[in-house]
């Protein structure tokens, strides 16, 4: 039996709950101590990103460790990785990032966000203009929904650059945000004018902490914190 000995610095594979939702049935040991030895003989060839130790949003991992479960195949895989494997890897890393904050959200979030990620990274819908989701922009999105205490589920999209897009709708109000790296974002807002009742369009760009403040100032928190949809 082929066994992989993980380096001592790796204490566990992050969030077994996420692993359980992955398309392939990976044998994952149930107890934390036995995870130091994983049977890889039945695993499909796959590149994995395994993080060392716990890391919350406030202290993201400095650098993920890339470990190939079949080291001998690593070079071949990296040069000829097929699109379906790349999409799988991208979806996996995004879902793992989401799993780090999922405890702050209602259970519907996990179901709906995972479903949307699967749709956005669907091999059967992949086009020339499609883009992988940049994990750093997804992390910015996560920081924003926690900071803004969003309870309303967003509709997700991906820009041609790989930036994560999110849209929130609430009657006559709509917020669309394009998330960048390093907690930056650009947003457009549609709302009705307070006096005229006419539709206004606003644009904003900056740090996500200021984005929440801007939304509050313009009386649009209902888009983010309405009753969960």
């Amino acid at each position, binding site marked *: 039996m082929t066994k992989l000995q993980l380096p001592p610095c790796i204490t566990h594979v992050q969030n077994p709950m996420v692993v359980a939702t992955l398309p392939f049935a990976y044998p994952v040991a149930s107890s934390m101590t036995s995870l130091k030895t994983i049977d890889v003989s039945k695993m499909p060839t796959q590149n994995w990103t395994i993080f060392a130790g716990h890391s919350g949003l406030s202290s993201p991992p400095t650098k993920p460790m890339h470990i190939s479960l079949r080291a001998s195949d690593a070079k071949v895989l990296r040069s000829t990785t097929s699109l379906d494997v790349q999409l799988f890897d991208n979806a996996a890393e995004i879902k793992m990032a989401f799993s780090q904050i999922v405890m702050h959200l209602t259970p519907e979030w996990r179901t*709906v966000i995972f479903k*949307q990620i699967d*749709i*956005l990274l*669907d091999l*059967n*819908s*992949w*086009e*020339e*203009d*499609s*883009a992988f989701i940049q994990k750093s922009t997804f992390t910015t999105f996560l920081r924003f929904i926690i900071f803004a205490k969003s309870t309303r*589920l*967003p*509709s*997700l*999209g*991906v*820009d*041609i650059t790989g930036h994560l*897009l999110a*849209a929130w*709708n609430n009657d006559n109000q*709509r917020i*669309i945000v*394009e998330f960048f790296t390093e907690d930056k974002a*650009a947003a*457009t807002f*549609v709302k009705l004018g307070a006096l005229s009742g006419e*539709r206004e*369009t*606003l*644009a904003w*760009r900056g740090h996500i902490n200021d984005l929440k403040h801007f939304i509050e100032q313009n009386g649009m928190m209902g888009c983010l914190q309405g009753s969960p*949809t």
Partner: protein
Amino acid sequence: MSKVHKQPRRKDLPTEDHVARYCSPQRVIRDPNTNVIIGVFPQAFKLRPKIKETYLSSHWMEFFSTDIDSQFQAVAAALGKKLSIEPKAAIARLNVGYVVQAGEKKTHSIRIRDQSTQNNPGYSGVYGMPLDNSDSIFLDLLATECCIEIRGVSEMRGES
């Protein structure tokens, strides 16, 4: 010496007519719970700097028919000859006059011209957009005020 044009300049489309814009599945806004299409992201109207796009590709809907259903079908057929259109994608119908007005609001001189060829009937281009996609409000106006209707490709094919 005056510049010699190889082709005569094409006509601008009438303001009461409409153009269709193909929107990739990743730029379609769906209700997070029901998955029903509720809009398109403004990013669906960005020019692609990677291929140095200078105008926004679209199709002149009235070129094909006067009936709206037939127009959508004809646009899908025309697009299908050029690219693989995905069931989760959508086609947005924009009013030409609204697009021109949205440009005026943002001081862009927008023109929508017929670019039909034998191989690409009904093809049209939206000219005058900022090449660096820097005007996010204009892109937003295209996605909201100018969009009259959005239909999913699978819905048009009767798959949903």
